């Protein structure tokens, strides 16, 4: 599926869910943000963004090594 198609369908789902939320959902959250309509859309979007960018940056800067890092050319020999 093309990116455009996926995003269109996903956006439609979100819009419908927002309408349903605004009309039918009786909010009774523990925190103020649970009262906001569409908070989860924003949190999902930003959260996902932060996770991807954060993990990729962190990985690139600190964590990732070539696959034979531990082997050093000897691991697979008996």
């Amino acid at each position, binding site marked *: 599926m093309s990116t455009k198609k*996926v995003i269109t369908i996903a956006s439609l789902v979100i819009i419908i869910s927002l309408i*349903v939320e605004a009309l039918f959902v009786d909010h009774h959250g523990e925190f103020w943000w649970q009262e906001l309509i569409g908070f989860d859309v924003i949190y999902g979007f930003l959260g*996902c963004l932060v996770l*991807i960018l954060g993990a*990729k940056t962190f990985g690139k800067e600190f964590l990732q090594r070539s696959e034979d*890092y531990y082997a050093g050319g000897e691991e697979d020999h008996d």
Partner: protein
Amino acid sequence: MTSLHPGLIIILGAILAGILPGRLRQVTMVLAPALAIFAVFNLEVNTVWTIPFINNLELTFLKVDRLAWVFSLIFSIMALLGSIYSLHNENKGEATASLLYAGSSLGVVFAGDWLTLIFFWELMAVSSVFLIWYKGTAQSRKAGFRYILMHLFGGNLLLAGIFLKVSAGQPEIVSLTGTGDAAFWLILAGVAINAAIPPLHSWLVDAYPEGTVTGSVFLSSFTTKVAVYCLIRIFPGTTMLLWLGTIMALYGVVYAILENDVRRLLAYHIVSQVGFMVAGVGMGSELSLNGSTAHAYSHILYKSLLFMGAGAVIFATGKRKLSELGGLYKKMPWVTLFFAIAAFSISGLPLFNGFISKSMIISAAGYEHLPAAELLLYLASIGTFLSIALKLLYFMFFGEDKGLEPAKLPTNMYIAMAGGAFLCVLYGVAPNLLYNVLPYPVKYAPYALYHIIDTVQLLTAALIVFWIFLPKMATKMMISLDTDWFYRKPFKVLIHSLVAIVCWIREYLAVQLMRALKSTLPYFANPVKWAAQTVEGPKHEYNEDRYRFPVGLTVMMSIVVFLVTFSYILLA
């Protein structure tokens, strides 16, 4: 006794599976867990069986309460599914190891006293390592050694704590929450290693991807969840666990985003999912403890299904790296379907079993007024959806077709996966089946409208971001460093240098000792040498006794022994 100990039934099955040939072994592998499930249903809550032990101690080898019952049920079900999945496996040893591992997990669950617990705990470690070693590669052998060393270390910490408990006259397993003495910390550390709480988690992501295809299904189900069970039993409401669990949940997803090895990615999600459970234990409310129990139950089902699906792909294609896989849905449609069901379950999509259990823990964080924990666990759920339902599913089964020709899978693999998928959906649509057997009464409605709407919004938004970043999500042929780096790199150098130093000292001492012997022994062989040589002695004939070392040595040893004995008598 109206029933039998389910763990002992499976352990008996393990022994028979190692002896019996071909078809009979397969029958045993299915029959033993099936009988265990039957035995679990026959066990009544509050049953206690004891046997006498040394020093007037009694071993409570079976003690059933609601918590133990629900865990024993899922472990028995899992033993059955895992056995069916591995029926085609010709390796008798592996059948024995996996059943022994499952049986000893049940032993821990039913243990009523510390000594029974540590016995089965160590049996689990020893039997499970074979599921890694049977892979037979140099890599798996090394990973297995790191795995068993870590577990023996954890087992020893636990044992030390148990010694303190038992010698203080408290052999029964009780909640240690709030005690904070040495036994508390030792037992907590021992259990935390098995629960894979960072930084003690690296054995898991190191070893599980190296196990056999069938063995990893067992591995993914038992050790960490037995540890969660022990945490619920021993440390409910220990606040530290709330934060450790929340960190765990995020730690796992961050690494999973980077990971390229399919089963290692899944292993990082064990860390993440167990994080939810550990956080639930830390909150300590009835809802959160129910949530941890329910989530362990759901997790065993969908995570084993994920490992079965990934194992099926590895079995059929021989590839284990995400960057080498792709486009398999046409050739493996059923595996794709089962894997998708498991992926949707772990992501907590409504109608799948992850939804009914994970939401309990997150809601409990809300009710306990823990905004940070609630939001961070929520973030971790986004990460789970991102790297399993989107990344793994997409790059393994869809995405670029790598033209792989998968081999045919044995039927028993399909049966096991279908069974797991059925249970994931069953508990998803009928949550009360699970809620009714949880330790505390449940007044929780997962299918409230706002709950469903929230989840749909959260995950759809994540889907959009994933699709925007799709080209960037493909993983590289890289590994990510984790805390096992400390014992695989600096620790290795440290050990090597220590060994070198000790070797040098030993060799130096040996050389010096030889030199000392060489210069003193002639005097014992020929005492005349003691006398001052004033004049040059006459040149005498060659006499071999003059130069005989052994004589000198014997004389010297006799004198030394005599002196030691004599001085002992004098001084004592």
